[in-house]
């Protein structure tokens, strides 16, 4: 299946979520964000085009979901099947072309396993640093869909942080490629540079240190920007 058809499948899933009234509870993160950034910036060629098959939905506030929606059934209608990992307890939804996963920001001591969101009938995996994405949302309208994604600047900085924590080298490389490609594009826009500065100002000192230690080697312009803060 070509990427266009994959994207069509993703749009179908998003449409189902919107019709069920659950799309506004999710934030689309991961490489498929870049596709929506392309629409937001009116299809610039400079944006990285690398996409994986994973579609990650972040649930910023799992406790604030009020309406009950059977998300697995919605996915089943599109041909997705449930894949359960017995050792970790993580649940994913597979299709020949895409894999849907649900994530929640992990804070403090963590959840000690996947978090069950009863209202949505799903289990979400808790991951660190995701709260950085939830605090900077951006709504992108596309073909009648209102898709929530993180702000591009924040997405790039988040990729830099997690690349430092990756054990898998190929994942680390793809994170870095995405972050550097996106930052390179964002640096051509003065308002985005200003946003990067303002985000860096609000981050904990340790996080900034991690970001700058990675960018020193891969994107030194960010260190220059941070130096001027």
């Amino acid at each position: 299946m070509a990427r266009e058809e994959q994207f069509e499948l993703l749009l179908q899933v998003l449409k189902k979520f919107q019709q069920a009234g659950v799309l506004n509870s999710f934030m689309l993160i991961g490489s498929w964000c870049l596709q929506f950034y392309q629409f937001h910036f009116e299809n610039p060629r400079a944006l990285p085009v690398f996409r994986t098959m994973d579609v990650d939905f972040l649930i910023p506030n799992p406790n604030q979901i009020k309406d009950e929606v059977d998300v697995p059934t919605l996915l089943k209608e599109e041909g997705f099947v449930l894949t359960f990992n017995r050792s970790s307890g993580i649940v994913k939804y597979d299709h020949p072309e895409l894999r849907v996963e649900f994530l929640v920001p992990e804070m403090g001591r963590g959840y000690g396993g996947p978090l069950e969101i009863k209202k949505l009938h799903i289990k979400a995996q808790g991951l660190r640093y995701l709260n950085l994405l939830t605090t900077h949302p951006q709504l992108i309208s596309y073909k009648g869909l209102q898709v929530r994604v993180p702000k591009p600047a924040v997405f790039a900085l988040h990729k830099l942080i997690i690349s430092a924590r990756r054990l898998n080298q190929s994942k680390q490389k793809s994170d870095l490629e995405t972050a550097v490609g996106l930052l390179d594009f964002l640096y051509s826009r003065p308002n985005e540079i200003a946003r990067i500065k303002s985000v860096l100002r609000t981050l904990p000192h340790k996080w900034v240190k991690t970001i700058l230690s990675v960018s020193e080697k891969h994107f030194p312009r960010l260190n220059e920007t941070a130096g001027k803060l």
Partner: protein
Amino acid sequence: MRTMIGVLKEELLRLKEAEQSYLREIRKLPRGSLHVKKIKKIAYLYLVSSKYSKISYRYVGGVSENESKKLKDEIALRKKYQQLLKEVRSNIKRITKIVYGKRRTV
């Protein structure tokens, strides 16, 4: 290129997991196909399946009965999953060829 191969290897693992998931779901659904028999102008539904080259007909009920509708939906879902399983397997073949070359068997 190494990043690409890494991503493809991961995709291969994902597809193998998906293959198992589709097989599990297909096993849960009824085998065979539906056949309508008209007896004295009344339509009756039969589930036709074969085992060890022996064909068996199982009476389901009237065409409009609830059980018949449920069975129809389940068989349609099984066929959909079988089609998707085919796609998964063809993707596994394609990616194995890219990552390991022609000689590796799936």
